[in-house]
């Protein structure tokens, strides 16, 4: 579980200032924002654009191009499930269907209690021990529903 700070424009300016001198600073800034706030809110777009002397359209384009960046806060737990071929070969598709049914969510959605967000990824480099997942940033191999429940501290 990851605790995020609430959005705060002053803190955001500080993050931008820390990275603005880097060559091609857009991605490092967005990563740092997401690390701090759990997402990159639309309010950050004009701030990043101003600091880097780029248009808002460019920053918005960047934010929406990359799968990693969230524009809305996620649940308290983020579960990234590998959907790629090596994991498919050991039953990932069926597992994902079970997980989605149990949590009553589809990809990119958060459970009604705000606890868990499910995101697809294509390969985690754990292709010999699939189905693979990153649960709150921690690698998990040979995932099954029981392991997921245990990792999330849920009884069902």
């Amino acid at each position, binding site marked *: 579980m990851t605790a995020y700070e609430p959005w705060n424009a002053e803190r955001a300016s500080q993050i931008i200032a820390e990275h603005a001198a880097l060559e091609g600073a857009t991605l490092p800034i967005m990563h740092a924002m997401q690390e701090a706030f759990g997402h990159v809110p639309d309010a950050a777009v004009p701030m990043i654009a101003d600091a880097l002397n780029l248009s808002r359209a460019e920053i918005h384009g960047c934010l929406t*191009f990359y*799968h990693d960046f969230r524009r809305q806060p996620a649940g308290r737990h983020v579960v990234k499930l590998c959907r790629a*071929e*090596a994991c498919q070969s050991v039953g990932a598709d069926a597992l994902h269907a079970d997980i989605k049914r149990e949590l009553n969510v589809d990809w990119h959605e958060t459970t009604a209690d705000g606890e868990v967000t499910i995101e697809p990824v294509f390969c985690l*480099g754990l292709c*010999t021990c699939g189905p693979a997942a*990153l649960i709150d940033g921690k*690698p998990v191999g*040979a995932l099954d529903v029981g392991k997921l429940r245990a990792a999330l501290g849920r009884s069902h």
Partner: protein
Amino acid sequence: MADVTKIYVPRDMAALAMGADDVAAKIETVAEKSGAAIEIVRNGSRGLLWLEPMVEVETGEGRIAYGPVAASDVESLFASDFLKGGAHKLRLGKPEEIPWLAKQQRLTFARCGIIDPFSLDDYRAYGGMAGLDKALTLDAPGIVDEVKASGLRGRGGAGFPAWIKWDTVRKAEADRKYVVCNADEGDSGTFADRMLMEGDPFTLIEGMTIAGLATGATKGYIYLRSEYPQAFEALNRALVVARRRGVLGASVMNSGKPFDIEVRLGAGAYICGEETSLLESLEGKRGVVRAKPPIPALKGLFGKPTLVNNVMSFAAIPWILSHGGKAYADYGMGRSLGTLPIQLAGNVKRGGLIELAFGISLREVIEEFGGGTWSGRPVRAAQVGGPLGAYFPDKLFDTPLDYEAFAAKKGLLGHGGIVVFDDTVDLAKQARFAFEFCAAESCGKCTPCRIGATRGVETMDRVISGVQPEKNLGLVRDLCEIMTDGSLCAMGGLTPVPVMSAIDNFPEDFNTRARPSVAIAAE
């Protein structure tokens, strides 16, 4: 004080995924309780991934391995006197004598899993830095000559001769040049880059530094996929050591030549593995593919001459310099020279990293190393070369791992990943997935790829549900032709490879009336 026993517990991401941190913690606790003097080293993985977490103990007769170890095994290991190499059901003996490993030819991965990844002294003791030492005695053309003599071809997928790019960047006149390492490793079934960055990061750093000396570049970037948080940490730790020890910085090993490296994280876009898209992303933009020419070697990052190579390409360089290009070229076959870090994955009993000279057959890898499927069912297909690679049936398994031999069978070797499937696989579903993946990951710049992939998914859905299957399969073939001929880059251009190989090699899965795999799944 009693002798301290060294215990190696890998911190490789695959070992962590199977509980290595819990095992390390448990060893600490039990050792403390029993008063045993131990030191835990978090090494990389040797690549016998079905045995992870594989714990090694340094004993009088060398290192003794145990695996796969779960935290719940630790008490019994201590009870069996494993600190002295005692007998236990998980005892594997000396790791270097395990046939799976003993049969390999480890040049690039010579140290991975053996050394402490962040100890430059360990690194040197096992042959590290000899390549850089050698390079510092040569001039830039002299370094490029060794790379040329090695026959090294890019390990990122395309197999382009490395020395040509090196020489082009070297000769380009500019006030600033860059060396960029492509560590985006997006292909399913591949993890060699990750393993090396986590388990032996100095090899990559040394290789890139030699590239800096050869090309005149002063700044290196490692573009790392964000899915590899452990590698990010490992690289940054190793870079700090390299700077502190004068390997990197204003004067590389006191040569007066500056070179430094910075790691940058991608953000979950497969297309950013394509080199021009990667450069756009490094510049802080959307990862949209650039038209070539100009080639990155002449106009790359921020318009400056830029050498872009894969992690495995750079990591082969230290060995090539220290042993000579000729010695490297003595491995391999035809125009595929040196060794290939093969990654055996998917539904396989013994998966992991297998470094071997080019030329071994796909069958030998799957059967002898892999030992068949993990499920115990018959092997039905293998996809080689990532999501843009072909699905091969048994009758093509005798193809040797060689760039040209794979191309002749309408496949590709790519980054050396092999994903094994058992007989429950449905190739029509895999073909559909190839389009789905392309639709999800296309950069959107050109129509055949952007629209074609989505049309492909829809059309495959019709084939699968039996709506005019013949007619719709014809449409899929047409679509593949258009994507092959009309796409700007290999994302759209090669998506037809998995699709067409599935159709051509497994026609029975596309005849919706009698799909054997469906029958099996319903058993």
